[in-house]
């Protein structure tokens, strides 16, 4: 950890225009774009690398509610975007995490993070339509487009979801948005184990419910299932879901629903020695991985029906890395004492190296 500089280091440069970003890439030996610093591990600079603060490249450039798209500069706080969308009854359905902590649009893309709402329509990768970025050669590049359907050129916007600032500096992005359901309601089923939770999901599957979020909560011995829509639809639908599950649940409506999901959002762990990590997985790996996490005393929850684990781990980086490797899993360390963001069994490294060499041939951005 000694080599890592925190994002707020005074040496951070603060470009006020894309031209200044280009200039910095040309001038500095190595740079890394940082947003609000809500994800300190991926936004920490290795030695010899200078943080570039993106907060001055901020603001919504274009938003036409009728198009269901907006374009904003990378440093725009998610909160500002969500407020603008909410005024027109729209939202980013994937519930980008760390919004209340001040996370920016660019940081969310670069970290490739989605929240509980990614269950139904997909995550940040599925809603990003276009990007503008600066390559390691200082080139200004647009990828994708500003319309919801587009197949022209390579899909650079998707590549940049999860790119961790290592392939280029994002300066602007265009997203698809959806009309926000009028209301949400949540069923909280008691579930002793993750296997029982997975069994419950299997029982519900044939009924074709359109769940907005499905969260397995071993720490609370529960599974939370969220529905969205018109409030008058809830009584019947919640009852139908309980019938299909063959058991009753506690119901959370209105403020109780809202507060419940707000409390579930990932946050920086309280303990300084704890690592917050996101681990993609599937239901097949979940029981064994959960047992390993339980044995390590890690707090954890499983989002999107068991497709991603959010972990707070206190046994140190090496042990976390080992726990992932044993299961053949990869992960992303976001906060806490971790020397690098990508951990575990990362796939596709050879392909990634080729991509990195094409976009950043002189390593003006840190390696992964």
């Amino acid at each position, binding site marked *: 950890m000694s080599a890592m500089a925190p994002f707020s280091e005074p040496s951070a440069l603060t470009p006020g225009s894309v031209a200044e970003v280009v200039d910095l890439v040309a001038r500095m030996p190595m740079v890394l774009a940082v947003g609000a610093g809500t994800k300190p591990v991926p936004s920490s600079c290795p030695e010899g690398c200078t943080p570039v603060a993106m907060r001055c490249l901020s603001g919504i450039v274009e938003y036409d509610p009728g198009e269901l798209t907006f374009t904003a500069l990378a440093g725009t706080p998610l909160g500002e975007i969500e407020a603008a969308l909410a005024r027109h009854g729209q939202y980013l359905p994937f519930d980008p995490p760390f919004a209340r902590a001040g996370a920016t649009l660019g940081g969310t893309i670069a970290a490739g993070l989605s929240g509980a709402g990614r269950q139904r329509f997909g995550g940040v990768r599925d809603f990003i339509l276009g990007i503008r970025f600066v390559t390691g050669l200082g080139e200004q590049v647009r990828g994708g487009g500003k319309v*919801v359907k587009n197949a022209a050129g390579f899909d650079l916007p998707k590549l940049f979801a999860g790119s961790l600032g290592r392939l280029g500096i994002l300066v602007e992005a265009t997203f698809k948005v959806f009309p926000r359901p009028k209301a949400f309601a949540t069923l909280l089923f008691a579930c002793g184990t993750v296997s029982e939770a997975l069994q419950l999901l299997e029982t519900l599957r044939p009924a074709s419910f359109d769940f907005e979020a499905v969260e397995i909560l071993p720490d609370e011995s529960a599974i939370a299932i969220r529905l969205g829509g018109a409030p008058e639809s809830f009584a019947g639908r919640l009852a139908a879901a309980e019938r299909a599950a063959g058991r009753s649940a506690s119901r959370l409506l209105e403020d109780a629903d809202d507060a419940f999901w707000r409390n579930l959002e990932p946050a920086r762990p309280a303990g300084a020695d704890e690592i917050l990590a996101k681990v993609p997985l599937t239901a097949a790996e979940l029981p064994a991985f959960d047992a390993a996490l339980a044995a390590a005393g890690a707090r954890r929850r499983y989002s999107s029906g068991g497709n991603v684990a959010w972990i707070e781990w206190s046994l140190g980086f090496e042990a976390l890395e080992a726990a992932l490797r044993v299961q053949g899993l990869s992960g992303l360390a976001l906060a806490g004492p971790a020397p690098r963001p990508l951990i575990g069994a990362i796939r596709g490294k050879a392909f990634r190296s080729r991509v990195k060499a094409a976009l950043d041939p002189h390593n003006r951005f840190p390696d992964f």
Partner: protein
Amino acid sequence: MRSRFLTALGSLFPPSRLLIQAAELAPFESDALTAFRARPIAVVIPESKEDVIQAVRLCRDHGVPFVARGSGTSLSGGSVPVAGGIVLALNRLNRILRIDPARRIAVVEPGVINLTVSQLAARHRLYYAPDPSSQSICTIGGNVAFNSGGAHCLKYGMTSNHVLGLTAVLPDGEVVELGGESLEGAGPDLHGLFVGNEGLFGVALEITLRLLPIPESYRTILAAYDRVEDAGEAVSRIVASGLLPGAMEIMDRLAIEAAEAAVHAGYPADANAILLVELEGERAVVDLDFARLSEVVRLSRPREVRVARDASERLLFWKGRKSAFSAVGRISPDYLVQDGVVPRSRLGEALGEIGRMGRERGIRVANVFHAGDGNLHPLILFDGRVAGALEKAEELAGEILRLCLRLGGSITGEHGVGMEKRDYLPAMFTPTEIEVMHRLHRAIDPKGLSNSGKMFPGGGAPALTAHGPHPLERAGIISRE
């Protein structure tokens, strides 16, 4: 040199799976964009991913270009062979390796037909969402290469939104695994970059697809209008009302006539435009939404509204739409299909302008489009036997693409750039942006062997001809979207 290569190929593939006679090669000379043709020196028919890997490595060793091909339904010339190269016909790699209902995934080989995935997943009440009009014949491998779309892209996205991971052989023979089986990933979205590469990054060998629960309920409404602009206005009102239909499709008068002549869908014959809107999801939600939708549509002053009473009527509504492209063959000997995208709010403007440009040139244009996502499919009608007609039609097609860009859209929504639109790539991207894409391409295919000549301007062009539909299309086996 060539004979040494063919000899080596012969040691990998038995004669029954190595086609070299002119008559055997002819069906592979073009795809659904029949204007482009080129003859490969051989076609090989792999039966396993090892066959594909060995063929690609042999091509690498001999510097021979190759084109992977599924059912040849590309509308952008995306699977046209490279002269002097070979074709890898992947139709026999058509195994569904696994359907895992608990994880809601299917792992398939590239030659699997799109619709087959949904048919096999249906027993688990799951389906594969991307539905290009050619879905009863096009393959997942081709869908992956060209990031195919369909009628449900506003709500559900394109192929790339439904691919979780894949194994691919890169053009220099390296085999890579990208993504995985989870909905989420860690690190850059490499499989997201691979999808839509137009064959330039090599060949996908195994693809992990995301499956969705089959909706409990559908409600489909068909509204007829006196003016196509009114249908476009209705779409804007529907979106403004906060509804999110799974599909919103518009056909204009000429397209309606063609569809009626072909499949007798029972569309209102005197309408100048038809709007098809479909809601799907949980019954309780769909019923509430349908009441709102009906009200919004009523306020848009259609001349007639029909609601599908049952599943068979719903399919009939769709049959006319899905067959519209090939149906146009009934009213014109030849036609070009365009695939531009405009912001949804500018659909009316775009259609008005396309109509004007067509009239100015004395060219008939039928319009079928995915109104929900602004994806236009103008069908430019011409007679290839008339000297200069193809060139005039192509000129109009180019004008339409430039119009889409002027309005803030794209040159292709779902067909890809391919051979057809590569000269328009510079109209959408700067020289720097194209250079960056070139660098990516070279990093992955240093020798330029895989499907070379597609997407980027300035590659070698096969002969341009102007004669009629593909033989398979004429026989009604393939259709176009």
